[in-house]
């Protein structure tokens, strides 16, 4: 067993984990944060995407111990109290989800994009979401949601 210290959604955790434990399993099973989903074992689907120090990372292909001393944000930590994050709000407003399984990863991957590009065009959004599959929406409303969240963020404090 290996000692792991991480901050997840602003809360510090110290746990003993098996060295082979994947980050997604640590988040889901040890911390009970089941918003990150396991959709494949090949880093293709992106349903497990979380933010590590602000960057979108696929938590199914990273060991938990690799995240030692990192700041992790999962979908559960994105809203501020009852106030939804602009991306959550726009996915809701623009019907950017149907079954919802890909949604946490999709929102966090979009978060990563908006932290690098505050005003992406449709093609840039589509390419930035290359690592996240959605089988329900045909992507159209996801693209729309990301675009409208970007506008909301630009019109407020400017940081996603």
């Amino acid at each position, binding site marked *: 067993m290996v000692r792991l210290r991480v901050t997840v959604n602003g809360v510090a955790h110290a746990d003993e984990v098996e060295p082979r434990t994947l980050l997604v399993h640590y988040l889901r099973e040890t911390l009970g944060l089941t*918003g990150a989903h*396991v959709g494949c074992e090949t880093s293709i689907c992106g349903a497990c995407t979380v933010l590590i120090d602000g960057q979108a990372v696929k938590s199914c292909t990273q060991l938990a111990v690799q995240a030692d001393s990192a700041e992790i944000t999962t979908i559960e930590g994105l809203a501020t109290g009852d106030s939804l994050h602009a991306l959550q709000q726009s996915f809701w407003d623009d*019907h950017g989800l149907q079954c*919802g399984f890909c949604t946490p990863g999709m929102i966090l991957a979009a978060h990563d994009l908006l932290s690098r590009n505050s005003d992406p065009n449709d093609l840039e959004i589509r*390419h930035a979401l290359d690592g996240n*599959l959605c089988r329900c929406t045909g992507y159209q409303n996801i693209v729309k949601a990301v675009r409208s969240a970007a506008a909301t963020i630009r019109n407020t404090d400017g940081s996603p």
Partner: protein
Amino acid sequence: MTAPTAPKFIGSPVRRKEDPRLITGKATYTDDVVLPNMAHVALVRSPEAHARIVSIDSTVAMEMPGVVAVYTGTDLQDALAPLPCVHSIENLKEPAHPAVAPEIVRYAGDGVAVVVADTAAAAEDAARQVHVEYERLPVVVDVVEATTADSDLVHTDMGTNIAFTSVTDVGDVDSAFEKADVVIKQRLVNQRQIPMAMEPRAVVADYDAGYDKLTIWSSTQVPHFVRLLIAAVCGHPENRVRVIAPEVGGGFGSKLNFYAEEAIVAYVSKALCRPAKWNGRRTEDILATIHGRDQICDLEIAADNSGNLLGVRADLYQDLGAYHQLLTPVIPGLTVGMLPGCYVLKNLHVTLHGVFTNKTPTDAYRGAGRPEATFIIERAMDLIARATDMDPVDVRRLNFPASDEFPFTTVTGMEYDSGNYQATLDSLLEKVDYDSLRSDQERRRKADELVGVGLSTYVEVCGMGPSAAMTAGGWEACELEVRRTGGVIVKTGISPHGQGEETTFAQIVADGLGMTPDDVEVLHGDTDITEQGIGTFGSRGQAVGGAALSLCVQTIREKARRIAGHLLEASETDIVFEEGKLFPKGVPAKALEFQEIVDAAYVANALPPEIEPGLSATHFFDPPNFTFPFGAHLAVVAIDKETGKVNIERYVAVDDCGRIINPMIVAGQLHGGIAQGIAQALYEEAIYDDNGQLSTGSLMDYAVPKAAWIPTFELGHTETLTPVNPLGAKGVGEAGTIASSAAVINAVVDALSPFGVAHLDMPASPQNVWRAIKGGL
């Protein structure tokens, strides 16, 4: 009967009630269910496509830490009945389909042993240490070869690979072909697809010995079927089985089934008296969840020089895979039924061959038999246009039934409920400015560009369906209960997994009872809550489930008016119920609030004896017919001559799904559906090698489209109500998929026509297109 007031919520883009939990990570999918002392199940699956199990040695596995039990097919064959298939096909050959293979494995992925351990990791580790010795048997891969007399056999004792042959022969096909000016022969292949819901299947079972009760959580579209079949397969009384479909991460037909793992996990929980979970890994899910399509059509078309469709002959070969799953042999019947498409066809001869191969079973995948039919008849229309040198629009228009010919009975016996095919096509052509599209194409062709325009005018059979035409019944059930403080509970037997009925059903109630959707909670996916139901598939959520709800709303309205009549000392027939108020006709000043009726219904001390206390309703709705949504789709593609890559420049669709409850959700269903049809047209193909190994067995190898591979869609609608149900809704879940593959391929073939290409099979991958450009290299 007083009609509800003008709809306020029906027809509005109400934001979804289900979304807050989904966008915040608070939703519970099956794999999120964690129970105390839960055991974990892993399956040992066959790496061979066809083999005899010589021996299974689980000694090492059993000694590994945390391992609780290992069961083989032999251990389970008495405890678990074979997996069922629901059909009414005469003389169907039905080989037993054991949950775990006791002796012979028949496809790569077939289960051979079940390992149970304290943790998922321990179960998986131990599964790798179960040593199975196989003796290889000949593998059957090619569906047409499999029908020959000297073919190797999937089920040796059957003596053939042909599970059934059915012939449909209507009209006089031979004379139609004799009279024809134009006869076209073409083989059309609908390649095998992997449904790939983003949530892999998972099952949790919890046996409560005190109540002798089995509770199953399953990622399913049909919890009530699962309840019935757990009872049948595991031998547990149905009234002590509860099935919960919690949040379900997509289905597309693949979760309209009863799977081995549902029976296995139930068995494990009961045998060990502890909860148990199986969670499919993606590669495992791809092998052990049904596939779709996989049909070859040898087509012959007869037409005259004016473009009239005179007759069709078709030999259909359906690859069933190794076993019948729940509906496997039924699906290609829908292809036959819908082969006429939206055209007047009088002479048809189809021979359908259902054939076993050593592959994962096929079954319902979004559209289920109808995308195949659309592909065949829409390609046929373009082939006729090519042979007669007509515009594909004109050929289609010529063969449509007129809008006053509905209900229109087809040569296959379908009664198309309502339709106006000219109107959707006209609307589409206007939307795209068809003439300028064609002149633009001409101009670009002269500039040496490969540009194509493709049409698909489709009709689909939905709203499944009248029980008279469905082997296991086609009704839907609903309960509506007004709570004491006025909030409403809807319990529906449909089991949505992304379609948004928590919202659309709340819209229906809100309009009917004069409330807002926020006042309505829609419960589904738990057989102890909604006691009867059939589920979500076949575009039936609104057309059958919503219709059952409409009947409940009507019953509540009628009872409220009776109570109001009593309280106001007026005849109930004079009571108007509008916007949540009830008053005698013309006397709105005397209005009672709906809440006052609710109070009277539950306090009940002022009710006359002939009015029962309470305010709730239950209805089963059984539609008298299917519904037949229709539409016209158009794709514009450009092809890179050097690479063969197809780029969809425009995709425009005008659809008619009857009454639209929520236009935002309807658009979402169409977007996703069209994308799945485009995926089949351009990207996705499940490929088996000669040894029966799935070469495309992971998301690394199977090309589910990414965001950048899918165009932006332009949508339009016409709204032709169906008389089949009180809502007038026809269904929209499958429309996009049924229409779009044909539109895209017709556009690709149109783009390649300067090279003399008359047909191209799917997927139109760069490689396949490049080969066509190079003359079939």
